[in-house]
């Protein structure tokens, strides 16, 4: 059957079986393969997308159920090709990932947390990401990434919602030579270029 999905601000039409999950539809029909299948029974969180801004398991939802909601996938977070958002850049800064497989879901979960809580405590962060399993990192550098992103968003001089910068805002501080954090982080990446650009 035909569905019309609002994904990353665009309307996408697809013709799917009623039994097809949102995850498979995003990956196979819309070619948005940044959302990953991990367990396909709603535990690991690798398939997390945002539905009207809230994290949801795309493996536990049929595509036909998603009709009418605003869906955000990891592909919707980068402000421009080659440019990272604040949360994404913070994950690069602290190396809050290794294999990258859980990372899109983890970043979307963090994104949703920071949208509703500008000053999350460590416990808030741990709680928010507890539905996203990471086998590589032991979570330490992920928590650091979310703390760093929160700090940068609080300091950013760009409008967001009532509390400050939008987590999706590009890292763009013309006063800074590079985007190493000024304070609050012990391990500054001195050699890095703006936006973590490598090439």
């Amino acid at each position, binding site marked *: 059957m035909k569905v019309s999905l609002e994904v990353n601000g665009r309307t996408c039409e697809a013709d799917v079986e009623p039994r*097809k999950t949102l995850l498979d539809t995003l*990956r196979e029909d819309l070619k948005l*393969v*940044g*959302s*990953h*299948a*991990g*367990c*396909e*029974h709603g*535990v*690991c969180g*690798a398939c997390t997308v945002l539905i009207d801004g809230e994290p949801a398991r795309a493996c536990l939802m049929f595509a036909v159920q998603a009709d009418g909601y605003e869906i955000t*996938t*990891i*592909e919707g*977070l*980068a402000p421009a090709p080659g440019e*990272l958002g604040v949360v*994404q850049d913070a*994950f*690069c*800064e602290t*190396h809050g*990932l*290794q*294999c*990258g*497989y*859980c*990372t*899109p879901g983890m*970043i979307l979960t963090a994104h949703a947390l920071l949208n509703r809580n500008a000053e999350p405590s*460590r416990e808030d962060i*741990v*709680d928010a990401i*507890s*539905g*996203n*399993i*990471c*086998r*590589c*990192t*032991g*979570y*330490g*550098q*992920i928590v650091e990434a979310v703390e760093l992103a929160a700090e940068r968003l609080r300091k950013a001089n760009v409008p967001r919602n009532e509390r400050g910068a939008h987590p999706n805002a590009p890292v763009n501080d013309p006063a800074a030579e590079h985007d190493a954090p000024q304070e609050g982080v012990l*391990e*500054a*990446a*001195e*050699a*890095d*270029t703006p936006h*973590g650009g*490598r*090439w």
Partner: protein
Amino acid sequence: MTVPHPPLKFVSTNRRVREDRRFVAGHGRYVADIELDGLLHVALVPAPHPAARIVSIDVSAAMKMPGVHATLTGEELAKAVDPLMNGLDTPQVRRFPLAVGQARYAGEWVVAVVAETRAQAEDAAEKVRITYETLPYVLDAEQALEPSSPPVHAGHGSNVLLDKTFVWGEVAQHFAESPRHLSFRVTWGRSSTVPIETFGVAANWDPWREILDVWASIQMPKYSDQIARALRIPLNNVRVHQDVDVGGSYGVKRGIKHTVLVSHLARKLGRPVRLIEDRLENMRAGDAHGPDRIFDVEVAFNDEGIVKSMKMRALDNVGAYAGRSPFQLGKPIGAIVGPYKIASVQYRAISVMSNKAAQEAVRGFGQSPTNYAIETAIDKVAGMLGLDRIEVRRRNFIGSDEFPYLIPSGTRYDSGDYHTVVAKVLAHADYEAMKRERDRLRAAGQCAGIGIAACLEPSGGNSSFEPLLNEKNTTSTWMESCRINVDGLGFITVTIHTTSAGQGHETLVATVIGEVLEIDPDLIRVTRPDTLNSLPSNSPVGSRMAIMLGGASYHAAQKLKAKIISIAAEQFGCAEKDVRYEGGTVSHADKILAWAEHVNIAHRNFHLLPEGMEPGLEVTHVMQVPTGTKLPENGRVQMYPCHSFEFHLVLVAFDPEIAKPNILRYVIGHDCGTVINPHIVKGMTLGGIAHGIGASLLEEFVYDGEGQMLTQSFMDYLLPSSHEVPKVEIVHHCTPSPFTVFGQKGSGESGYLGSPAAISGAINDAVAPYGISFAKLPIRISAISDAIAAAQGSKAEVQP
């Protein structure tokens, strides 16, 4: 050997990990993301019994289902491919991707169904009708050893794959001389690394070019060799694409059976074919379970707690097929005494088959279970003598002035300073305050305990355990390679020849080459060509890549630098030793030749090159494992070249009735020599600890008495979440290795090699006041609360 070098500019600095950028954007390229025209999908029909003869298979109904292209049985497949390789000389233990004639564990794949979509393949798989005649089965390792036990492979004659006893040193004499002995049994439950991405593979056969293309979520030495052998095609007909990102592995992503299956199907059907395991297939039949091991340990020691000798019997239940799994009893021989000066060891390694899923390599390749057994022994020695557990470890440690230190089984440890690492951890953690806190918690009615583990991480991965356990195997190299090309415009492209599963190899190589050439690593492109365009590699196993890929890229960069210096000296008309290389520029007196000029001469001015030099700026280096020069002699061999050290100190507390362990403090002292990228090493260590917390408290593949695996989903097989993993404090120390270029050692298994031992020690310290202890991992919440309740019950009976 460590080469003297000026102060490091890039190595050991907190540079970003270049791979991260694509992953945070959702632009990793995993096997399930590969698009192939005309792709067909596989679903599998599992065996319902732990052992059963396959009487008949009827696929007629399945073939009529929509979208179905083919079905395949084990009998059909076995005619077209050779059995998968075994590590030991066990030719009658034949393993094919699908069960042939007999199913040997519940869940084993019996029939493959190929259809236009995975959903259609699954629908059709349900229509396959198979009749079985059930056979006797065996699950328990001790029972499987018995000659009367049901045979898993009747042709093999018994269920024993390996039963080898090594005696290194004067064990009998040392036991006779020692005033004190103790013995115990501990069991390591069957768990695994369980990556969030399951194993997946896609293959396509091009009959006109005679090329098999393979894209896989693989981390495996000699992968393409094994594909070629099984399919009976030349190795240069197999092209494995190594630029596929692997979504976690930690050892287990070795889906050779999956690969041979889809490769055969692709060849047969003339279409690309893909198999991505679903979670149930992965857990039950991906053949990726880890060690399942019983240790019987006896130690001989004196009143001061000095351990003189150890006898260890390790019985590993490897499941229904052999593969490389028996070797997981061999690798720990290279650190069989841990960080201790135990003078002699008797080691009996027994590998036995059962009707459980097949075992595969898991992080540490058997070392973490062995470390758990050794550390339990040290805790028990301290307990018997009433000595502090840390003090006993200090008394037995190899001293920093005793390296390189030859252990009884033939490995020479490279370097270490165990006493200093422990002292730093105790100072950082304030051990006395930690003990007071434990006692305060106990006084408040909590169970509280401190856990300690001092472990080694053998690193640098050679395969000396192969010839040690299999005399027909004469492998004495486990090389790694790097190629550097400077193009005509002066830009540098480096090739590495393996897949990556999050270890940051591109960052590693760029950092090392940037360091040697004194140029910004960010200007260096690193690519992973397919296997037909690759130099020899043995993949990222055995904590080897910092040493081996770091080493190969270092030596390649030195060759390139030498070539540039030679070109410049030729222009200056001076000796090579009289020029100065700085940041890519070469000078002699007042003459200077910049990078672009070397490049121009090498690419365009043959007439200016030194006599005999090839044009262009391209170098390769194939590196042999340091220290890996000999085959075993008299049951002794140099195993891995480098030995990282980790010291864990953990405070755990829990309510005696609820018994959910809370890790209140986790401090690890870590010494892996010179760190190349601190972010990467930190992540490996924290991730390893989390994995060890899973293995010690949560994770187990449990089989019921009927041979069915009970833990088939993440609702039953519990992975640690952010709630279960505490904040970990890392105390760094650096004892460089004399055998590597920067003094680096391995860290890919760090954390995991000691955390299960430390957590076990903490739980046992916490329940010691009840007079109970736990001798099996994982130690589940229910086991703790039940044991405490039983102990309290028996106390109540004694004291009415």
